């Protein structure tokens, strides 16, 4: 019982932090829209072309925008020792990572959901494609949260080469992109594809607490 109370407490703290950091979130969304503008202007206003490549561009820009908030994931709590305090409060590091992933999913990725319909307006995407995009984004962003957790905890360990974290996110997001964009193939079995995406999400949800916790423990030991 006390553990559940502490978990709720943790999530409450995350939500408070979310409100105090809301400017960061809006800058991420602004980055997302500006990069869409850059894309549109560099390609020219060919409506037909934009419609065919729109989905791919939106997905890859969502991915890039989510790597922006990568450093925020653990760094603050790690540097001022809050992670240790929380652990001493009786929550294992694996559980902390799991909760962090959930709160990242709700507080960082979900706000992007609202920006997707607006972004698809710029590319004049058909309604069913937007619908599919939102659906795959909900599952895909959960995977992205797991990946961000893994690479952010990896970044705690090195103080110089931050590119490596983004590389890891991009590398493991390849299957997400393949299956998410594949959904708009006209004669694909949508159900099986969604199931496959859920399968990938479950794999990463399963392994990321262990690997991130291992990285965090390593980082604490070498602080």
């Amino acid at each position: 019982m006390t553990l559940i109370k502490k978990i709720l407490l943790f999530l409450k703290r995350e939500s408070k932090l979310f409100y105090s950091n809301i400017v960061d979130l809006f800058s991420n969304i602004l980055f997302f829209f500006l990069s869409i503008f850059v894309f549109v202007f560099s390609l020219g206003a060919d409506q037909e072309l934009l419609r065919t490549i729109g989905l791919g561009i939106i997905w890859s820009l969502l991915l890039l925008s989510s790597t922006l908030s990568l450093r925020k994931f653990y760094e603050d709590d790690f540097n001022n020792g809050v992670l240790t305090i929380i652990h001493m409060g009786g929550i294992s590091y694996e559980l902390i990572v799991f909760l962090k992933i959930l709160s990242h999913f709700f507080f960082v990725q979900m706000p992007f959901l609202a920006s997707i319909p607006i972004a698809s307006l710029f590319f004049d995407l058909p309604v069913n494609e937007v619908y599919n995009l939102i659906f795959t984004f909900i599952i895909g962003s959960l995977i992205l949260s797991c990946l961000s957790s893994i690479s952010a905890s990896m970044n705690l360990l090195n103080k110089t080469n931050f590119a490596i974290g983004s590389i890891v996110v991009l590398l493991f997001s390849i299957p997400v992109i393949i299956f998410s964009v594949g959904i708009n193939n006209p004669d694909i079995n949508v159900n099986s594809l969604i199931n496959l995406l859920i399968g990938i999400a479950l794999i990463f949800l399963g392994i990321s607490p262990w690997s991130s916790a291992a990285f965090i423990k390593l980082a604490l030991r070498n602080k």
Partner: protein
Amino acid sequence: MFNFLINPNKFNKFADVIFKPLIVITSLTIIVGLLLVYLSPLDYQQGLTVKIMYIHVPSAWLALLTYAIMTIYSVIGLAFKTPFSFIINKAIAPIGAVFTILCLLSGSMWGKPMWGTWWVWDARLTSVAILLVIYVIIIFLNYTFESREVREKTIAIFILIGSINLPIIKFSVDWWNTLHQPASISKLSSPSIDISMLQPLLVMTVAFSLVGLIIAILRIKAEILMRKNYL
């Protein structure tokens, strides 16, 4: 008995004993293998191009085998904190990368005349390309972190995460419609490759593994020497 697989000193001794005979055997196998490849018949469809297979298939197998070995050693290293595991991980990652590159290049050279293209984005080719990227990241990670313990453990964990890719590579041709042909040799059925072509393929595979083993021994010994102060 198998202590030399986990103990650096015993490995050194073992390597010293087998190294010279190994070189002799390897050169013999290479000569025999090349002769067999030279004498092997032409394919009824591919003609001379089939001989690229004798490089392509062994290097692909060894690329996977190297990664599988690294995965096993990472598990051992993380569970029992054996320093030798991390030596292996550092020493053989470039070997795996080279085999992967060899596999991709030879496959590309075969694909141009046979399929009509150097490269397609089908599941098998993509997953092997990802394997190469994983190898390259592992090599980069070796030069990223300041602390040795951090470096070794991070690489081991990363190898474990990346091992998801292995079954994807293996089964990609069965799960999905790919341009790449399915495996010709599997345990469950008799191989769909003629015996006169299977023989040189197997000998070449042994030869490739032995060459890989020799390079691995040299690299591992060098790595042990570099870490003499820590072991």
